[in-house]
């Protein structure tokens, strides 16, 4: 029986039924393709005194010996595309400082970074760019790895090109429902705590946190300051998005720490 049920559970029909029933919906789809490159939807900021840095490893080169570029797509906080930049891997690692040449100052938004081969390939590759993003004051960066495998670009399409016409899809399940996430830490009331949410789906999402409810546009972001009160227990996030796990930026006495929570 288990031998029969397991393939059904993981089939397209099974996943659809699970989504409708709200029973263990599949989280992401990046393993559905033989040739795919995927990325987190990272948050960037140049607001106040903050700076952002991104560090990528040439995964295609290291694991598959395939020459590649990094396609950096930058959006504003409303999810509107600001720029598409291509960076060549001339060594195993690439560091991108989000200065005025990359993003406008005094703003925030989202970005994703896809590793794409120089030319069309036929061998199976599945690249996950979880890499590392850092936020800091005066370039003293607090580093953090990717939060979720959020955006993917199947490379199966023979018409795939390296310009902005590449077919990007959400890698996360867009199923709509009522989903809860509890922050896995207790926050201090002696610090400024800001939760950072990004939305990689093709639709807007709704998020409820304490007394606040807000919508995040597709590819956009939202920063929510959390005021920690005496006796507050755990913090719950409720959303119609399956994976509403934020990152958190904690600031105290001129220092900053960013991590997933």
């Amino acid at each position, binding site marked *: 029986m288990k031998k029969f049920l397991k393939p059904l559970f993981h089939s397209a029909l099974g996943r659809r039924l699970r989504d409708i029933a709200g029973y263990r919906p599949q*989280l992401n789809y*990046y*393993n559905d393709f*033989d040739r*795919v490159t*995927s990325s987190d939807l990272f948050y960037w900021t140049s607001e106040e005194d903050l700076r952002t840095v991104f*560090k990528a*490893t040439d*995964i295609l080169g*290291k*694991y*598959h010996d395939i020459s590649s570029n990094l396609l950096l797509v930058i959006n504003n906080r409303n999810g509107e595309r600001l720029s598409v930049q291509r960076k060549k891997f001339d*060594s*195993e*690692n690439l560091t991108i400082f989000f200065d005025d040449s990359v993003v406008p100052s005094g703003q925030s938004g989202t970005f994703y970074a896809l590793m794409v081969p120089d030319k069309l390939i036929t061998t*199976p*590759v*599945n*690249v*996950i*760019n*979880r*890499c*590392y993003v*850092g936020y*800091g*004051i*005066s*370039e*003293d*960066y*607090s*580093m*953090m*790895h990717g939060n979720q495998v959020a955006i993917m670009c199947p490379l199966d399409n023979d018409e795939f090109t390296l310009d902005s016409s590449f077919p990007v899809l959400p890698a996360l399940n867009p199923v709509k429902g009522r989903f809860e*996430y509890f922050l*896995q*830490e*207790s926050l201090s009331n002696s610090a400024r705590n800001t939760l950072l949410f990004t939305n990689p789906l093709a639709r807007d999402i709704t998020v409820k946190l304490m007394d606040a409810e807000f919508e995040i546009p597709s590819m956009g972001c939202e920063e929510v300051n959390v005021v920690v009160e005496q006796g507050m*227990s*755990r913090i719950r996030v409720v959303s119609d998005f399956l*994976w509403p*796990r934020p990152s958190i930026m*904690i600031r*105290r*006495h*001129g*220092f*900053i*720490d960013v*991590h*997933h*929570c």
Partner: protein
Amino acid sequence: MFSGRIIDERWSFTPFEFPEGAWFLELEASHDNQDDIFFLARPSEVESMIACGELLSVNKFTDTTPDYRSNLKIVNAKGGFSSYQAEYPFLMMKKLSSLYTDCSPLTSSRCERVGVFLRNIYSKPLISERKVYLYNNEMQKIIAEFKVLLNSTNFLDLTRFKSDLKNSFLYGVDFIGVPIYFIEYESGAISMEHTHPPHELIGGSDRFGLVQRLKERLGEKISKAFVSQRLG
């Protein structure tokens, strides 16, 4: 909640009580407990580990989506702080394969201090020594050799190599663990984050095969450099 440590070549466990109604238990690190492990289990499950003489996967309480994690935070005298969401998967406790971690992404040459905590947990109550090599791709040589211990929190101070870390990696033989990189800046600010294991950077059915082949290539580099530097 239990803590565990090795005493006289055997695992020894101590229970903690959760304060009534609390969602989180806060523990402070010290020199005494820095190599301890912490986990959630029932007393009967702990007794089964004592009887067996090694760590076991006794329950599925922390087999959750999203992954069940604790918050591990460090602070310094200047007020700088950093934390990351920590876990140590049980499957890693059963293995003694090879460690590979790229030093570039989570280090910086403009720092006061930089290093990596290599935390190992092995199911058997062994505290034995292993070697970890720091290899520089540009120079094509081993630039440092470190001794690490199983079932310990090992700190590798990489400060004197900070200008070389952009093109370097760490490689351990018969040793795996979670590499947690640490940067302390002159201002007192801190960064702390772990690198992903190689198999989490690629997907597909052959990902473990790809990782194995990568580690074999890197292992050959280390071996060649080891021999040539010894003969040198």
